C-alpha cells in the first residue's frame, strides 16, 4: 500500500466512523497532541471526534537520515474520540483491517505504555500497540491535559505512519517507502531532512532562539490577558518549538533544560485554564 493510500484509507475509515477529518495545522509541533484540536478540545464536557495527519517536528530526533526510523520530521496519524467509546479497541483493530492488515494473521498486542508530556502538563494511561513486535500505535486515555483533570475522557490513537508503511511495504528504511507511484519518501524529504538536521544541530542561532523563546512566552502571556486563547496557544507552540531547538543544539544543562520545560508547562496550563474559564465557566469553577 502506498504511503498516501495509507492516509486516504485511514481518513475513509475514521471519517466513516464520524470523525471530523481535519487538515494539518500550520505551526511547528512536536506531536499531534499539541494540535489545538486535541489539546484544547480534550478539555471541557462536549463530545468530540476528529482524525488528522500531524506532521511533527522533533529537532533532537534527527539522524541525518542515517537511522531508518528516526527523523526530525515525520507524520503521525492522530485520532481523538471523546468520550472514549466502550468498543474503542475493536474500532482500532478494524482500522488496521481497513488498511489491509489482517490482524488475525499477526501477533497484535497492547503493551502497557503510560504517556506523559511534561511540557503540556498532560498525562494518560494506555498502551503501545505491537504488530509482530513492531510498535505501530500509541493508544492513550487522557487523564490530565494542561494540568486539568479531564472528564469525560478522550482516547487518543496515534499511528506511526512511517513505521506502518515500512512494515506494509517490507522496506528497511523510511526513505525507501513508496509515497506515491514511483516516488519515495526519500525523494520528497531527504534534502529537507539533511538541511534541517544541519540547522537544528549546528546552525540554529542560539542567542536568537533564546530571545525568540522569551518573546513568544511574553506574547502568549499578553494574549492570555486579552482572553485571545487560540492566538496565545499558538505562541505556546512556538515557544515549545524554540525550546526543542535549543535542546537539539545541546546548549541546555540539565537544570536549565528543566527550567525551560517548566516555563512551557506553565504557559500550557495557563492556556488550559483560560480556555475553560472563557468557554466553560461552569466547569472551570
Amino acid at each position, binding site marked *: 500500500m502506498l504511503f498516501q493510500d495509507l492516509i486516504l484509507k485511514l481518513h475513509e475509515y475514521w471519517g466513516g466512523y464520524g470523525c471530523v477529518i481535519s487538515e494539518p495545522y500550520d505551526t511547528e509541533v512536536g506531536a499531534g497532541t499539541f494540535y489545538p484540536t486535541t489539546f484544547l478540545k480534550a478539555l471541557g464536557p462536549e463530545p468530540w471526534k476528529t482524525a488528522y495527519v500531524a506532521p511533527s517536528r522533533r529537532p533532537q530526533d534527527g539522524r541525518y537520515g542515517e537511522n531508518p526510523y528516526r527523523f526530525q520530521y515525520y507524520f503521525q496519524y492522530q485520532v481523538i474520540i471523546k468520550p472514549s467509546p466502550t468498543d474503542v479497541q475493536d474500532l482500532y483493530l478494524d482500522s488496521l483491517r481497513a488498511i489491509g492488515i489482517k490482524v488475525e494473521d499477526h501477533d497484535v498486542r497492547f503493551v502497557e505504555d503510560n504517556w506523559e508530556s511534561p511540557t503540556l502538563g498532560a498525562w494518560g494511561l494506555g498502551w503501545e500497540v505491537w504488530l509482530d*513486535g513492531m510498535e505501530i500505535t500509541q493508544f492513550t486515555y487522557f487523564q490530565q491535559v494542561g494540568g486539568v483533570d479531564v472528564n469525560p*475522557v478522550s482516547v487518543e490513537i496515534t499511528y506511526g505512519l512511517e513505521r506502518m508503511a515500512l512494515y506494509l511495504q517490507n522496506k528497511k528504511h523510511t526513505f525507501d517507502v513508496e509515497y506515491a507511484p514511483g516516488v519515495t519518501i526519500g525523494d520528497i524529504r531527504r534534502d529537507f531532512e539533511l538541511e534541517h538536521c544541519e540547522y537544528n544541530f549546528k546552525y540554529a542561532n542560539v542567542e536568537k532562539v533564546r530571545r525568540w523563546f522569551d518573546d513568544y512566552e511574553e506574547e502568549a502571556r499578553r494574549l492570555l490577558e486579552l482572553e485571545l486563547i487560540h492566538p496565545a496557544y499558538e505562541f505556546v507552540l512556538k515557544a515549545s518549538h524554540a525550546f526543542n531547538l535549543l535542546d537539539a543544539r545541546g546548549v541546555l544543562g540539565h537544570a536549565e533544560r528543566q527550567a525551560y520545560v517548566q516555563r512551557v508547562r506553565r504557559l500550557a496550563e495557563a492556556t488550559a485554564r483560560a480556555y475553560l474559564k472563557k468557554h466553560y465557566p461552569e466547569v472551570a469553577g
Partner: protein
Amino acid sequence: MNLLFEIGTEELPAAYVPRALADLARLAAERLAAARLGFEAIETYATPRRLALVVRGLPEASARVEEERRGPPEKAAFKDGEPTPAAAGFARKAGVEVADLTVKDGYVWARVVHEGQPTTSLLPELLAGLVRDLPAPKKMIWGAGDGPFVRPVRWLVARLDGEVLPVEVFNVSSGKTSRGHRFLAPGEVEVDAETYRNALYDAYVVADVSQRRQRVVLETTTLALSEGLEAVMPEDLIEEVTHLVEWPVAVMGSFSRKYLELPDEVLATVMIQHQRFFPVRAGERLSNRFIGVSGHQPPDLDVVRAGYEQVLEGRIYDAYFFWTEDLKTPLAEHHKKLAGINFQRGLGTMADKTERVRRAAEKLGGRLGLDEGVLREAAALFKADLPTQMVYEFPELEGIMARAYGEKQGLDPRVARVLEDAVRPRGPDAPLPETPEGALLAALDRADTLLGFFHLGKKPSGSADPYGLRRAAAGLVRILGRMGWDLPLEAVLEAAAEAYRDRGLDVSPDVAQAARAFIEERLESLLTEAGLPTLAVRAAQKAPSVYGKMLRARLVYELMQRPEFAELTRLYKRAANLASQGESTREPDPELFETEEEKKLHAAVQPTREAVEELLQRGSELLPPWDPAAPLPKADLTPLEGPLAQILALAGALDPFMDHVLVMVDDAAVRENRLALLRGVRDALGELGALELLGA
C-alpha cells in the same frame, strides 16, 4: 457453594497483574470475613484481559452471632430505678427495648443479635467493593467518567453456582459469560466456578497463571533445544512475557550473523529491553537466534517470525551503528567529552567528578595495597563510556561498554574489567564490584556524590530522594562492607572531601560529618532489615570501618541472645558513666586497692580484654566480609562460646564492685585508682561497641 467472579478488562499492565492477584485474594478474604461468610479456599486467575477469583465452600448464609454490648454506667442509666434518656438512647442504638437491658459490673448491657443473611444478597455489593477498592499504583477513568480502575473494565462475570449475581460497578453489569481469545475465539463463553478454567482453555485462554508460565518456559526451552541451543530466560522476563499473552506460542527467529560482533550484553539488552525476546545461547556465547512468545497462533507463524526478525534486525542495526561509530574514537577521547556532561550545578561536570574520584583513589589505593598501575589507568578512563552513543541509548550498558570498547581497542584486560566493575552495584540488590580497584572507584564515586549534594544542602527529607542519595549511600556501605577493608568510613569521606578542596570547593567537616551519619543510617537500615536488632547496630557504629561495624553488630547480637547479657550491660552502663568522670589516664595501681572487690575486678579485666580480642578475631574468621544488603551469613558460631562466656563472666566481678565499693571517695588517690579500674573495664568491652546504649 462456589463463587466465580471475573473482572474483564482492556489489557492490564504486565507488571501489575501479580500484585493485583495477591491484593484481590487478600481483599476478598478480608471482606468475606467481615461479612461473616466462611469459605474453604480462594483461587485466583489472570490474563492480560482479566482478573478472576474462585471462592469455594461458601455457606448459604452468613453466620448468626450474638453480641453483648456495653452501654453507659448504671448510675447514669437509671435514676431512682427509672431509665434515663441515656439508657433509652443506648437501647435505641442497639436495637433493643429498654426493658431488655441488663445490669452487670456497674454497667448497662444489651444483647444484640446479628441474624445471618443470605449469601446471594451479601455478595453483589461485596464484589462491587472489590472492584472499587482493589489497590493500584496508578488508576484511570474512562468514557464519561467511569472508574477508576487500572484499565477500563469491560465485562463482569459473577456466579454463585449456577446463579448470576447482579453486580453493578462503573456502569458495567455482571453476566454469566466471559470472553475468549481476541482472535482465536472472539466471542462470549459461558463460565462458572466449575467450568472456568477448562471453558477458557477451550477458547484459547490459559487463565491459570502458573500453567501459562510453565507453558512459556516449556515452549521456549524445547524450541531452543530442538536446534541444540539453550534459551536464556531471566526470571523477570519470563514473568513479564507470561502476563503479556493469553495463549503463548514460542517463535524462533534469527538475525544477521555479522551482528555477533556485538558483545552479548548489547544483543541481550536489545532483545529483552525492546522486544521482550529471549536470547538463545550456543555454548558460552549467544547465537544469532532469538525466541519471541506470540500471544496468538495465527494460520502461518512464518508471518509473525518475519515480522519479529525485521523489527529486531532494525533494532540491532541501530546498536551496531552505535558500536562502529563509538569504536572510531579511542576511549581516552570519549573520556574528554565528559566535560560536556553536567554532573550537578555547583559541582561541575562529569569530567570534574571523575577527576575528583581519580585524586581520591590515588590517595587511598596505596593504603589498601591495590594494584596502583591498574588503578591509575582505570581511574583516568572512569566513565569514559558515558558520552558514547550506545550508553546514551542504553544507559544500563554503562560500564559494560567501557569494558567492551576498551578490550576492542587493546586496553589491558585487567583495566577493562575494573571499568566494568566500577559502576556496580546498579541497583539495591544488584551484584557488587569484584575487583578491589573497581570497588574503590565505585565507593569514591558515591562518596563524591553524597558529599557534593550535602554540601549544596540537598539532603533528602522525608521519603523524597530526587538525587538518589539513599541509593548511593546504600551502595557505598555495601561495597565497603563486602570488601572488608580496614578503612575508616571517615577516611573515605575525607579523601573525597580533600579532592573537592583540591578543586576549589570547600566541603566543611560538618558536611562530612552529616554525610557520615546519613551513610551509617543506611547501614543500620540494611542490617536491621537483615534481622539484626537496631540497638546492636547502633552500638556497633562506634567501630571505624564498615565491616568492623557489621561484624560487631553481629557479635553484639550474639551476646544479646544470652540472658546474662542484660545484667552485664546494666552494670557496664553505670561503670562507663563513672569512668568518664576520671581525670588521669593512669593504669590502676594494685597497691592502692583496699577491698577484695577491687582486686577481683582488676583480675577480671585482662581476661575480658583478651576474650573480646579473641571474639573479634574468631568472629572475623567465621563471618568474613559480606554484603549488608544480603541475608546475614550463616555460620556455625560454636567456636565463639568460650570468649562469649568469658565476657559474660565479667558481671560476676563487676556486680560486687558496683554494689559495695564507693568510687567517689574523698581520698583523691583512691578515687582516681578506682576510676582507672573502671576505665579498664570500659575500654575492654568498649572495643565491641557502645554497649552503654544497651544498658537499661
